[in-house]
């Protein structure tokens, strides 16, 4: 694994944008290429060495509402999120990922008794979405998935 590239990727995510049309922070994407033999855990562990991060796995056994709650919980801990995508992203989570990508906040309707709530992504938090290239290309039905992210790290 190219650690220098990973470091640059993290550095790019850490920085907050100065150009005003951009959201303050970007969401990052790590794509594991078909040819890569690197273990997913290894990638997560490498990131863990650089920044405080927690993993969330989005798969068939999870529900969007729970994933959103977990994201809010990790935000409260001021940590980064490594979100491993293993099933096609459903509407609820996709909506929130878009809010995070465009505005760095979650926009929730009827959350804890409030009609319309915006939960800001704290300054020290970032989200790295991790998925395999094959999976993105064949299973993610939202056609503009890559557009949600700023820097992308391709792992070969």
């Amino acid at each position, binding site marked *: 694994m190219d650690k220098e590239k990973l470091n640059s990727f993290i550095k*790019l995510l850490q920085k907050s944008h*100065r150009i*005003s*049309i951009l959201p303050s922070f*970007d969401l990052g994407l790590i794509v594991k290429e078909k040819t890569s033999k690197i273990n997913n855990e290894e990638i997560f562990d490498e990131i863990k060495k650089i920044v405080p991060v927690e993993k969330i796995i989005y798969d068939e056994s999870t529900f969007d509402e729970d994933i959103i709650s977990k994201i809010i919980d990790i935000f409260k801990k001021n940590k980064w999120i490594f979100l491993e995508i293993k099933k096609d992203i459903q*509407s609820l989570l996709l909506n929130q990922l878009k809010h995070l990508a*465009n505005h760095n906040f979650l926009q929730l309707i009827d959350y804890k008794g409030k009609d319309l709530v915006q939960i800001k992504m704290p300054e020290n938090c970032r989200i790295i979405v991790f998925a395999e290239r094959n999976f993105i290309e064949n299973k993610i039905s939202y056609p503009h998935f890559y*557009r949600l992210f700023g820097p*992308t790290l391709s792992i070969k």
Partner: protein
Amino acid sequence: MREKFEGIRFKSPEELKEEEIERKIKERGPEGEILGGIVFEEEVDSETGEKKKYVYIGNPYEERPIIIKLETEASREEIEEIKKEIIPMRESFEILETMAMTYKHRQPLLIEGPTAIGKTFLADKFTELLYGRNVKPLDFYCSGQTDVSELMAKWVPKVETEEEKRKWHEFLESPQAQIELSKIAQEVEEKRGWSQEQKLALIHTRLQELAKSIGLSEKTQWRFQYGAVPKAMGLIRNPDGTFSFDEKRGVGFILHIEEVGLAEPQVINALLKLRGKRGKLAEEIQLWENGGKKVKAGPKFWVVFSTNPPEEYLARNEVDPALARGVVFKRMGELSEESLHLAAEYYFTYKLGKKPEEKPEGCILDIYNHPEIGKEIAKVVAVFHNDLNKAFKKGEKGRQQRIPLTLDDMARVADALIDIQIRDKKTGQLDLTETLKRLIHFYYLDRLADEELKEMMKANLNELLEGDTGKIEFEGKVCTRKEIFDILVERASMSKEELEEKERQQKERELRQAKYAAQDALGSLLNNPNIPDSIKEKIKNIQL
């Protein structure tokens, strides 16, 4: 005597005001740059005598712009700040003008245009122009999985255990869910003579039956939730700036439904409820979920739909014709090359946002203070962006995912260039060429699945920066972009004294060259047999 005054008339105060606003809308800077387009005015309401704030929006590229006046909650300072964030591209003002016009007339708007055109960005800015900084519209993003209930309304069971939660979600994700819920909707809608209470009781009974059939408790309690559409119809702004839903007092808010081209037919059917009379938005909608109770749209409720053109989607989703008929349909083409270059120049000369007060960590050269370098970078990145966009149009091999480029990609490179810089080991100065290459890889190339295209674009970038085809004329010489970057970086890296010294040396060199040239010329005159000796004597006396 009377004839003398024919054709002369006095302008009314309204006309004079109109002319003043038009002049401000069309205002340009010393280099012809657009300064107008958006104008803030504070005026006294002639009926109430109350001071009100207005924003005027018009397309400054038009000779006779249509100018729309809208009441705003934003302050003059806020409007000025928002204005600074909008790159004055022709396309941006065309969109803003349409938004203002349709908003004023409560007409739903659908903008179909490529990603780079800035639909989302301008919907956000339009909302800010009306409500103040950092107020975003209620955004709803469509996808193939969008559930109608998220848009309109739903009943949610109060589940006690994880097991019950799992069962409910599994049911919702099953194809059966849509069928069962549609059955309830149909049954409720058929009970035309029933009161709302009776209908609600029926819904409750059916939901309890449903709960039982999927393994939930028969005594499950249900909570009713409005979706994005009714919420936006009845939102009201609180004194603290937050928004609440109020069925009676709600004035409504801006709802932006994005990527409507991806929505499934059932979602479109639900959205058709928003069509009102004479091309306007519906004044109320009726939902079966709350027993047929009508939800009123407040006067400030407005919907803007946006979508990418069908060719940007794999399935070539056309906007549903019924929806297209019920909205003001604005089709936008690709961003012109002129606008693309303008955007690139704005980004790389750092006209948007705040420049760092001190050199940030990682910054070798304060590139944000050197617009002469920014202009050269802008040329390179705009060309690369355009080339890659053209390559994408042909389709990336074996791709389901689309990667339409956005101006944000370019902005990201500019932003990162401030403090992610690589040093040239030989000179100790910024290696701009290498830095730019790296950043373009991260923000443009690493997304590409097609290795062949990636390699081709890498080679193109190298050629553009260092090869013969990328060469352009610079200060009278033909140079590669890398050479130009190196010259500009060297100049910018020098201290004032060093720069003055370098300029002095250069002048000296030029003077020496001129002297040698003059000596050569005089020498050739002296050797010329046709020149009389008397003249040659005079030439000999010339002091160089």
